């Protein structure tokens, strides 16, 4: 396991930020999702050893989050959300400096800096001052500095923010490759659910300081709800009311496609029984694919 947390509690004064968080994350790429104020940042701070939990135990890459923060940060790469750099330095010097601060010998840091800059696609512009880089280039540079010391685990905070669609696609491909073929575990915190769905095979959804859902995305989608798409004829009001009372969410699209999200263990025959009772004719019934967005909305309790 790369991350193992047990019953983590943390409060900012009277405000409880994390309330008994327990999770374990293994290899591959994991998405960290949650609305603002859910406790994502506090959780990352605890995992990086910036905050000491009030209660609970935790290990990141086998090191204790309470006492071995330096060891954790040596083995972890962090790509911040903000645009951040040291003005006046060229990309290769900047990246080498970051490698050296992580514990690489000076010459090795410089060598690795060249390598990772080529890897993230900044090879040709590695001697340019970072001040002159575009937003997309700065994003790649942040990934390079996070990778330079060959971390075992990468924390990526909104890695595709401020990128155009092409740039976003390229950086996602890079992250995907790092996670899948370079044996580096990735924890990706993002508000863009599509990014997480594309890169990660696992997700941790955190809400109000508690883990709302955690596991393989495909499993969670199946476990938490089913989505059925229907084409119907007749008055929907009674049908909709009855299903909503049974715990389903019913949506109607502009082209009169009815989407029914059913709770776990909901017998789909009840949909037909309800339709019959309300005089609604079901002309098409499809068990549909659900998205991460649907899952997120459901476990966090928002539309």
């Amino acid at each position, binding site marked *: 396991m790369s991350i193992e947390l047990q019953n983590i509690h943390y409060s900012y004064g009277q405000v409880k930020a994390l309330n008994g968080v327990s999770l374990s994350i293994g290899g591959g790429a994991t998405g960290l999702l949650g609305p603002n104020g859910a406790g994502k940042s506090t959780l990352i701070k605890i995992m990086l050893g*910036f905050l000491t939990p009030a209660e609970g135990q935790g290990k990141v890459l086998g090191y204790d989050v309470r006492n071995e923060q330096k060891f954790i940060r040596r083995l972890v790469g962090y790509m911040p959300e*903000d645009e951040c750099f040291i003005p006046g*330095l060229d990309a290769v010097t900047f990246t080498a400096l970051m490698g050296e*601060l992580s514990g690489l010998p000076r010459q090795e840091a410089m060598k690795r800096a060249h390598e990772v800059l080529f890897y993230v696609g900044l090879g040709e512009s590695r001697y340019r001052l970072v001040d002159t880089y575009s937003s997309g280039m700065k994003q790649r540079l942040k990934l390079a500095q996070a990778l330079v010391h060959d971390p075992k685990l990468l924390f990526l905070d909104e890695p595709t923010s401020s990128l155009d669609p092409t740039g976003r696609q390229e950086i996602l491909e890079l992250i995907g490759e790092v996670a899948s073929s*370079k044996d580096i575990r990735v924890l990706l915190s993002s508000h863009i659910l599509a990014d997480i769905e594309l890169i990660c095979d696992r997700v941790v959804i955190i809400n109000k300081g508690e883990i709302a859902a955690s596991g393989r995305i495909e499993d969670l989608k199946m476990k938490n709800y089913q989505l059925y798409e229907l084409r119907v004829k007749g008055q929907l009001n009674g049908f909709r009311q009855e299903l909503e009372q049974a715990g389903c969410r019913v949506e109607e699209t502009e082209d009169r496609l009815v989407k029914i999200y059913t709770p776990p263990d909901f017998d789909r025959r009840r949909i037909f029984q309800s339709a019959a009772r309300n005089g609604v004719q079901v002309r098409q019934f499809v068990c549909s694919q659900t998205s991460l967005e649907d899952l997120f909305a459901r476990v966090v309790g928002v539309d």
Partner: protein
Amino acid sequence: MAEVREKGYHHWEGQLREKGPVFWPITRTGIKLAFQRKRFKFLFALSFIPAISFAVGVYVSERLEDFKFMAQGAEKTLQVNPGFFKTYLSQDFIFFMILLLMALGGAGLIADDFRHKAIQLYFARPLTRLDYLLGKAGVVAFFVGLLTLVPAVVLFLLKLLFSGSFKFFLDYPWLLLSIIFYSAFLMVFFTCYILLASSLSKNRNFVIALIFAVYYLSEIVRGISYVIFRSPYSTLLSIMGNLQQVAAGVFQVRPAQDVPWYLSLLVLSVFCLLALIFLRRKLRGVEVIR
């Protein structure tokens, strides 16, 4: 033969360093960044003019007979004694050049990191806040040391060399220690002063203005206070005045003001202590992840 590898990402096989001076790469980068500025290089060279003049003075003081035709009555002014070193290390020009160089090369040490949010990059690594501060402090200490400690020690050695004996050393056996102590004191004081100023704003230009304003305003306040109270203790309000009083005490010469030199040392030490407390608090409040 070296391994030929394809471009791309490769795992690193070595062992990451766990001990050693973590702050040194920060200091080295800070020094490099300062020298990247053309004006800095010019001013840095200019700041050695007093050292060269004093070196000439040391030479002439040992060859007074040869230069008699040029330097009439120079016996009094060209006496190389503790006062000579005190004059070199506490002259207005040296302080001004330290301020000027540090305004150019040191104002952005912390301010730029705040402005470009680079601090989170440092602290996401196995680096403590103390390591970060030591790294930044090293830049200021390096330049102040180059302008004070190095020339003063060289002047001392030149005196021994030109005189051809150890008489000067035996006359003032404590002088070398005084030079080291006072230079170290200047390094500590200016480090605290510049880093404090640099941490007060994200705007480098504001920091530059602050560095000069506080220094010279303290001198103006001293002048006003002296006019009102006619007390020599007014000098305790001036940074420059206090630095010169401490120099007089350390080199055992008569101070410009009739105020115990240790009071000036105390004032400046309290200033440094408060600056360090402020810096610690400021950096403790840095949010690496928001």
